[in-house]
């Protein structure tokens, strides 16, 4: 009997360690997301100061938007190659092919996620960087975890514990402290097109929030490394076969010149490659964290990107952020730590499975949301 009790205790201890390790990995991936995402704003903004983008006058709204579309597309292609390298090293290229071909039932979710993440979030973020600035772009999408968590809760019943909800509220409050003053005209007053930057900021928040929840559905049955590769493959196709050809054909926007101008300017390509390397692995870490700690938590910890973005921007521009940015960032960090302190076992099972009795219930909820 004593031997049995000892074995049971050892098993319980090993199980706890196992869950704790999974949770730690999930949060670690989410933290990497934050670091690399924060770093992305430096090359992403620097790109606007290189040819051909620096040549576009500030008041040429449509050309600047077309330029944003072109840079987002070239960025996506570069990300694709970084992911190809990643999956080649991991030996997952064959699985990428096997997942891509199942479009009707699986990879279509990645296609939808790519629409949320690419033409909405990344495009919106480049808009915010181009029309207002990197600090605003970085802070404007701080709300995205809430959108992701709410969709994940409604759609596939992902649990949001009381502690996670408190953490999210603190993060949102932190975001409001940062965002608030800009809404009262302290930022962008001298730029007549600043509203496009604000729109871009909102697009990025909604885009990234919904992307996590949509991609999560496909990731239930597929590999996250492969999933992110599928998602960028579809983004390339959307821009390259649909959006940019339509713009080039039906408008007089200089799409072709912008593409040629970008790929033939070494410095522009250097910034794109740097931005893409950050984004490729930030996204990989993002998707991996979803699988282990859930969309809501992954996105909330990923939200620390704002802290890293401000640190990187301050380091490269030697300009210190405003005092209210610091207050907001302290709150954001605090909120993330509240979420991190959740017990390992509660993170191990993310879904309220008892609420879902059959596929119809789930599908109907999904249809309702989409």
């Amino acid at each position, binding site marked *: 009997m004593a031997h049995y009790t000892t*074995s049971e205790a*050892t*098993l319980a201890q*090993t*199980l706890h360690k*196992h869950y704790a390790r*999974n949770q730690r990995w999930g949060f670690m991936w989410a933290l990497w997301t934050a670091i690399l995402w924060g770093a992305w704003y430096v090359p992403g903004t620097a790109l606007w100061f290189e040819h051909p983008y620096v040549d576009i006058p500030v008041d040429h709204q449509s050309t600047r938007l077309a330029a944003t579309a072109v840079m987002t597309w070239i960025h996506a292609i570069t990300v694709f190659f970084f992911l190809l390298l990643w999956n080649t090293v*991991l*030996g997952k290229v064959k*699985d990428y*092919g*096997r*997942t891509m*071909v*199942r479009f*009707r*039932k*699986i990879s279509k979710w990645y296609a939808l996620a790519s629409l949320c993440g690419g033409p909405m979030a990344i495009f919106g973020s480049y808009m915010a960087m181009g029309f207002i600035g990197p600090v605003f772009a970085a802070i404007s999408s701080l709300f995205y975890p809430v959108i992701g968590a709410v969709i994940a809760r409604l759609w596939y019943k992902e649990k949001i514990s009381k502690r996670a909800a408190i953490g999210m509220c603190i993060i949102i409050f932190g975001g409001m402290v940062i965002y608030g003053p800009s809404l009262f005209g302290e930022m962008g007053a001298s730029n007549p097109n600043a509203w496009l930057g604000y729109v871009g900021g909102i697009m990025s928040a909604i885009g990234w929030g919904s992307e996590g929840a949509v991609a999560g559905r*496909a*990731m*239930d*049955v*597929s*590999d*996250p490394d*492969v999933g992110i590769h599928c998602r960028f493959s579809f983004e390339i196709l959307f821009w390259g076969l649909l959006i940019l050809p339509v713009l080039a054909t039906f408008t007089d926007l200089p799409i072709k010149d912008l593409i040629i101008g970008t790929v033939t300017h070494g410095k522009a390509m250097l910034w794109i490659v740097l931005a893409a390397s950050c984004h490729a692995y930030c996204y990989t870490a993002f998707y991996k964290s979803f*699988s*282990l*700690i*859930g969309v809501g938590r992954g996105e909330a910890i990923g939200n620390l990107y704002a802290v890293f973005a401000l640190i990187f921007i301050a380091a490269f521009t030697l300009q210190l952020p405003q005092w209210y940015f610091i207050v907001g960032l302290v709150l954001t960090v605090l909120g993330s730590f509240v979420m991190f302190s959740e017990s390992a076992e509660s*993170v*191990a*099972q*993310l*879904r309220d*499975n008892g609420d*879902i*009795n*059959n*596929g119809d*219930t*789930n*599908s109907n909820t999904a249809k309702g949301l989409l």
Partner: protein
Amino acid sequence: MKLHQKGFLLVTLSKNNRLWDDELIVQTFIEYNISGDYCEKTLRIALDELSAAGLITRVEEKLEANNKQAKLLFRYQLSDFGRARMIDTGLLNG
């Protein structure tokens, strides 16, 4: 074309009531003609992810003495939610 590996793990579980992770790993090794520690770890992570997502449930666990270190093994079963998601994603006929 073969199923992607996570899909194969789910389909294999759906055909059997309960399976130990070691049994699942052996079947996957045979199906994809792969082997080695790295592939085994990758598959265990995939099973952790499927379990965290609630598609499969751990119905039993045991410690197995393996050289110096005790190895934690899990016995898995497909959950109702996993079955529903498999039907949604075309891995199982409704």
